[in-house]
C-alpha cells in the first residue's frame, strides 16, 4: 500500500474553506522556518486511501475476536448514534453550567448506574482509559493514607499474574511493588499475602476473576487480610464482564475500582482508544475523587471541585462521548440484561474450553469464568510449534488470535475470551479451526513456523524495526 505521502502531487487538494472575509493580518514575530510537508491530495485520493487502509484492518465486525482480557464484544450501532447527537458533540466544555444540563444529567445517570453495578458510592469519569483509572484509584489510596497522617504505607501488593499496567500505575504514584505469588490453583497465595501485608501496606490491586480466568473463592478472606493490615483494596475492572450482575466488587470488600467502559460496556476500542476508565469508590474515599463533581441542586445540576480532591487527571470531564455510548448500552441492558451478558460470556468461554480440552492443555482446568488460558508448553516441547505459531496460523483461517503470552506466569499462554456476543455456530466453527490447527501442529509443525501465508503480509521483522527505528516517513526535497 502506498503511503498517503506517496500519493501526494504538488498542487492537488480539496476545497474546504471560503476566501477570507477580513483583511489578512498575521501576528508579529517568528514565522515557520521549514516547509510544511502534508499530503497534497484530492478528496478521491483521501477516500480511496483510507478505504484501502480500512480493508487491511480487522475489526469486531470482520469476525471472531477472542482477545483474552480485552472483551472484544459487539459494539451496538445505536451507541454511535447517541454519542453523535449534536446536542452532545457541539457542546464546549467551558459553557455556562445552565447550558450543559443534559451533559451533566448524563454523567449523573452514568454515575448512578455504574455505582449500582459495582457496589460503589461515587464515581469520576475523568480517567480516559483503564490504566488512567488505575492511576486515579491509587492516587485516592495515597491521599487517604496521607489524610490520616499514615505516611509509612508505601507498598502496593500485586499478584504476579497481574496486567503490566498495575505495577506501572503503582510506580507512577510513588509506591513500591510487592509481587504476591499465585497459588497452584491460580488464585492469590493466602500465606504469601498474610506475610506481605503489614503496616507498610498501602493497598492491594486485584482483578477478579483473575487474569487466568478464575474467580478467586477466597476473595472475602483476601480483602479482609488487607483491611486488617490497614491497607485498602483496589479492584481492576478489566474482567468485570464475567460477573456483572452476579457479584459486585463493593460486596467483595473492595474500596476503589476502575471500569473499562470500552471493554465491559461495549464502547468500541477504536484501534487502541479512546477508552474510558471511570474510577469508583466507597463513601469514605469520595472526598478524594478527581475533577469537578456533578451534584444535583434544586435548580439543576452543578459542578464543583473538592478541597480534598487528588486534583484533575485530565482536562475537563474525561472522554465524555465514550461515556454516552456506555450509558446507552447499560440503559438498554437494564436490570436483567447485565447479568444475562455475564452469564453468556461465561457460558461461551466454558463451551469452547470443554470442546478443546481433550487436545489443548488448559493451564487451569475446572470451570472458568469469561476466559480461559491454554498452555502450549507441552505442544511446543513435542512439536516445536509455539503459542506464537498457533496464533499466526489462526490468521490464515480469518480469525483474530487470542491474547498471546499473557499472563506471564504461563509461558506459552494463549488466552481466549469469546464474549457473549458470539453465536453457537461461530463457536463451533472456531472450535473446529483450533482443532485443525492442533492437528497440523502435530503433523506438519515445520509449516506453521511460516504462518500466516494468506494474510496481507507475512511475519514482520520486529528485530529490525526496534534496532534501527524508522518511525516517520522522510521526505526527499523536490
Amino acid at each position: 500500500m502506498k503511503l498517503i505521502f506517496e500519493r501526494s502531487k504538488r498542487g492537488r487538494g480539496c476545497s474546504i474553506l471560503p476566501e477570507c472575509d477580513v483583511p489578512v493580518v498575521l501576528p508579529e514575530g517568528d514565522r515557520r522556518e521549514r516547509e510544511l510537508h502534508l499530503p497534497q491530495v484530492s478528496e478521491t485520493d483521501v477516500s480511496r486511501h483510507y478505504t484501502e487502509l480500512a480493508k487491511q484492518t480487522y475489526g469486531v465486525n470482520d469476525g471472531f475476536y477472542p482477545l483474552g482480557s480485552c472483551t472484544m464484544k459487539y459494539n451496538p450501532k445505536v451507541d454511535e448514534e447517541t454519542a453523535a447527537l449534536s446536542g452532545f458533540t457541539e457542546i464546549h466544555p467551558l459553557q455556562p453550567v445552565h447550558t450543559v444540563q443534559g451533559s451533566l444529567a448524563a454523567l449523573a445517570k452514568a454515575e448512578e448506574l455504574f455505582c449500582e453495578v459495582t457496589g460503589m458510592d461515587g464515581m469520576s469519569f475523568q480517567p480516559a482509559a483503564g490504566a488512567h483509572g488505575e492511576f486515579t484509584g491509587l492516587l485516592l489510596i495515597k491521599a487517604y493514607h496521607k489524610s490520616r497522617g499514615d505516611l509509612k504505607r508505601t507498598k502496593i501488593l500485586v499478584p504476579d499474574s497481574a496486567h503490566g499496567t498495575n505495577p506501572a500505575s503503582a510506580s507512577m504514584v510513588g509506591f513500591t511493588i510487592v509481587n504476591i505469588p499465585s497459588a497452584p490453583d491460580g488464585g492469590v497465595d493466602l500465606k504469601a499475602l498474610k506475610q506481605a501485608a503489614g503496616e507498610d501496606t498501602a493497598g492491594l490491586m486485584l482483578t477478579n476473576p483473575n487474569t487466568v480466568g478464575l474467580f478467586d473463592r477466597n476473595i472475602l478472606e483476601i480483602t479482609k487480610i488487607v483491611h486488617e493490615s490497614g491497607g485498602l483494596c483496589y479492584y481492576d475492572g478489566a474482567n468485570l464482564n464475567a460477573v456483572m450482575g452476579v457479584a459486585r466488587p463493593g460486596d467483595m470488600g473492595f474500596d476503589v475500582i476502575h471500569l473499562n467502559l470500552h471493554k465491559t460496556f461495549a464502547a468500541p476500542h477504536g484501534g487502541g482508544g479512546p477508552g474510558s476508565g471511570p474510577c469508583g469508590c466507597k463513601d469514605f474515599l469520595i472526598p478524594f475523587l478527581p475533577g469537578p463533581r456533578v451534584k444535583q441542586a434544586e435548580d439543576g445540576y452543578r459542578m464543583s471541585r473538592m478541597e480534598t480532591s487528588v486534583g484533575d487527571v485530565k482536562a475537563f470531564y474525561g472522554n465524555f462521548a465514550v461515556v454516552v455510548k456506555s450509558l446507552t448500552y447499560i440503559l438498554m441492558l437494564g436490570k436483567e440484561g447485565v447479568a444475562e451478558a455475564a452469564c453468556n460470556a461465561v457460558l461461551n468461554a466454558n463451551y469452547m474450553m470443554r470442546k478443546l480440552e481433550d487436545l489443548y492443555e488448559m493451564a487451569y482446568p475446572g470451570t472458568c469464568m469469561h476466559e480461559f488460558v491454554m498452555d502450549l508448553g507441552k505442544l511446543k516441547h513435542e512439536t516445536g510449534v509455539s503459542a506464537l505459531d498457533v496464533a499466526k496460523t489462526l490468521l490464515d483461517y480469518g480469525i483474530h488470535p487470542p491474547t498471546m503470552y499473557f499472563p506471564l506466569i504461563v509461558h506459552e499462554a494463549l488466552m481466549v475470551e469469546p464474549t457473549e456476543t458470539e453465536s453457537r455456530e461461530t463457536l463451533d466453527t472456531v472450535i473446529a479451526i483450533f482443532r485443525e490447527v492442533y492437528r497440523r501442529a502435530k503433523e506438519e509443525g515445520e509449516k506453521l513456523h511460516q504462518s500466516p501465508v494468506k494474510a496481507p503480509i507475512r511475519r514482520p521483522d520486529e528485530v529490525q524495526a526496534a534496532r534501527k527505528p524508522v518511525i516517520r516517513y522522510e521526505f526527499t526535497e523536490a
Partner: protein
Amino acid sequence: MQYPAELKYVKSHEWIRMEGDTAVIGISDYAQDALGDLVFVNLPEAGDSVTLGEAFGDVESVKAVSDVISPVTGVVKEINEDLLENPQRINEAPYEAWFIKVGEITEEEEYLTAEAYEAFAAEEAEG
C-alpha cells in the same frame, strides 16, 4: 557456546576481565543466546557508581527486558557507546562487546572460572 578461559564469570551471567585496577564487564555467550536478538541496551554514564549485586543497566529484546547486574562495587570509568547504536554486537561477539569499565573497586563478587561457569550454565539450561 564459548567461555574463554582467561575471563571470570558470575552466576548472573556477566563476564569480567581485569585490566589493572579496572574491571571490564559484559554478558556471557550463554546469556546473549538465551535473550535472543538484542535491540537496545541502557547503560549508566561515566562517573556513576555501581553496586555489587545491583543492576547497572538493562538489555532489551523485542519482547523482554533483562537487568544487567554489576559483579563489583565501584565507579564507571567508561561505557561502550558503540553498543547504543549497534546492540547486535552483543549477539555477534559477546566477549568483545563489553558494556562498562569500572574502577575504584571496593568490593567484588566471588568469581567463577570458565569451567565452573560452563557447568553452571549447562545446569541452568537443563533446569
